């Protein structure tokens, strides 16, 4: 994972590094964005295509369906997911606060904000698990169920991956591995978290609000 790269790997350190006789300050062509952040942006770009594929499948199947949801299946309740949406949006704000703090080298604040973000993300997943337990259709009943569970499920998996990523960054921060303004991994993990958040907003609008 780009976020996990340590110094000493990666081009700039290797290039600037190590006692090359008579080495002048060698600056690579066009290295404006740090490697972890650029790597993360590219990874997110690829994730956009993943969810685009899922949304494409959704609208292809929904466009050809006779009833949506199919007869005998109730419309989804929106209050629990709406509350979960608010939690996730707030977590994006706290994530931003963590990245800001990291940029200013305030490690304690960074760690605190990261922890709050993780807690909000975990609450979101809890809400989703609760909602699953309340539903009266399964993944194999009809294409409606298939799409609902696979899209929300893939998103939940991404939230979980984001939590793991934030957890690793949190450990590194609280151990002081990322002090002295080395905010790259926090920023990279934050980019991913915001992405997961934006996808949820689209999912919420598509699955719950579009009737």
């Amino acid at each position: 994972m780009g976020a996990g790269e340590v110094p000493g790997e990666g081009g700039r350190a290797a290039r600037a590094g190590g006692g090359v006789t008579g080495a002048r300050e060698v600056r690579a062509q066009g290295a404006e964005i740090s490697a972890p952040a650029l790597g993360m942006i590219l990874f997110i770009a690829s994730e956009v295509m993943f969810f685009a594929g899922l949304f494409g499948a959704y609208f292809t199947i929904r466009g050809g369906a006779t009833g949506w949801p199919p007869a005998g299946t109730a419309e989804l309740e929106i209050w629990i997911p709406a509350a979960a949406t608010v939690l996730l949006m707030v977590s994006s704000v706290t994530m931003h606060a963590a990245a800001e703090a990291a940029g200013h080298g305030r490690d304690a604040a960074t760690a605190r904000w990261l922890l709050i973000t993780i807690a909000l993300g975990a609450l979101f997943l809890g809400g989703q698990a609760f909602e699953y337990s309340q539903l009266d259709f399964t993944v194999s009943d009809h294409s409606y169920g298939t799409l609902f569970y696979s899209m929300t499920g893939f998103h939940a998996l991404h939230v979980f991956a984001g939590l793991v990523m934030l957890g690793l960054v949190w450990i590194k921060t609280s151990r002081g591995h990322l002090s002295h303004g080395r905010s790259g991994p926090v920023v990279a993990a934050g980019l991913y978290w915001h992405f997961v958040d934006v996808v949820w907003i689209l999912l919420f609008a598509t699955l719950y609000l579009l009737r």
Partner: protein
Amino acid sequence: MATAVWEQPRRRNIFARPTATTGWYSWVTTVDHKKIGILYGVTAFVFFLLGGLEALALRTQLATPDADVLSADLYNQFFTMHGITMIFLVVMPMGVAFFNYFVPLMIGARDVAFPRLNALSYWIFLFGGIFIYSSFLLGGAPDGGWFGYAPLSTKLPTDGMDFYAVGLQFLGIASLAGAVNFIVTILNMRAPGMTLMRMPVFIWMALVVSFLLLFAMPVIAVALFELMFDRLFGTNFFQVAAGGDPVLWQHLFWLFGHPEVYILILPAMGIVSEVLPTFSRKPLFGYAAVVFAGAAIGFMGWGVWAHHMFAVGLGPVANAAFALSTMFIAVPTGVKIFNWIGTMWGGSLRFNTSMLFSVGFVAMFIIGGLSGVSHSIVPHDAQQTDTYYVVAHFHYVLFGGALFGIMSGLYYWWPKIFGHRLGEGLGKLNFWLWFIGFNLTFGPMHIVGLQGMPRRIYTYPDGMGWNLWNLMETVGAFVIAVSTLVFLVNVAVSRRKGRYEAGADPWDARTLEWSIPSPPPEYNFAEIPVITHRDDFWHKKYFVGPGKTAEPVFSGGAAEAEHEAEHHIHMPSPSYFPVIAAFGLLVAAYAVIFGLPAVAIGLLITTLGFFGWVFEPGAAE
């Protein structure tokens, strides 16, 4: 890194990095892009031999009508595995092998941006290949064709298509990791002065291919997940009775599948764009046009997928739109062809083996490209769908194109990688057998295809007028096999010490990798070069004298070798976490098919691998 001043710890840290630089262990833990490149190349070549053996079995079965060499079932498994192997386990990783070895060398960098991610990518590729091939021993290989059309593929009874769905997913992770790595490397780590428009065309093609991978792999990932869920969990993506859509798979697959075609061919185009100028002793004709044509292919490749689906019945408007975009995408390819011919025009040509393969590439790719354009004519395509005409077409672009380019690259860069050339005599024999065998095998397929012989049939009756052509094709396939053996003999013979010793710059070439010793030292460049021209190394060797001829520069120039010796350049230390993380995924992949709960064990191993990855020290103490 300040690690050197730390006190030596008494107890060995579990995160301490391995240090071996020789022996098999150094290959397992390596993060050196050159070693990983060699691993990629060797592995892909082994898979090439396997895929080739499958092809020989298929051709033996089809040599005569009503033959009985393979059962219908085994035939299905073999043609499916032949396609999967050649596309995902041979041509794609061969391109990646060249990217790995030469992207850092050609842009003047010491390694790729994420060396451990690079190692992870290789191990996932290797385990993914082993995973798919193990299906032969575990109840039957995939048998639904390499494009595995759902809903049929959701109903095939053996575990084969599960191996297909999970295995390709697995290989996709390797491609994604590689793509991110190469884009960051190319954008962030070029030597000072190497602007985008001074990059070698091969690097441009690596960049375009990486972007195509980045955007195409997730699309097939969605399709494969849907297939896997339909098969394993009873979901209804493709099941019409429960409201699913039977054409959805085709859209998703070809939305990946057509960019994939360019993923396969662009690396070869990059190789040819390096080889032709070197052996014509001229700069590439129309550099900017070649670069923009490559980028244009990268964009337009997304708008032509439904030409694989003209027989589906999407309606005249959709068919007409995709017919037009398909005609249009031939334009940038044509631009490249003319530029390559323009490069050779008036040059002082050296027809060694590498050059022969490149010229062969241009010639064969023209044929494959023309039969491709013929598919943009909808009625023609509807007639040829699922016949041998299609098989002929894509073998002319993938074998006549991609594999010719890869062979050219092997002969071209062999001295850089191993320090000695491959023999020219055996090399030329290799080329001519390859060229003749190829045309003998795939040329007649145009004819039997137009005569209506369907692809993917395991046998055919006598008296259809196909016997002679099919026998000819089988003979051709064996000629290719002999040619491959000649290549292997050449590799073995050329190793003999001192036989074809090559210096740093045996071809008098133009790009940076030739400015350093062969094989390159671990750190590649003792001093990072400063770039002032396109084809910078050439300009360091020659200047344009009076009368517009190239005159050698007498001082400096190629004699970079005495600079090396006692530099202490810190390179990233080896790591065993990439192979651990990849192994966890392998466990998870088997668990998906044979015992779902065990997926947790696999993912746990992978997570632990990543945990160690994040917390291991930056360099060995």
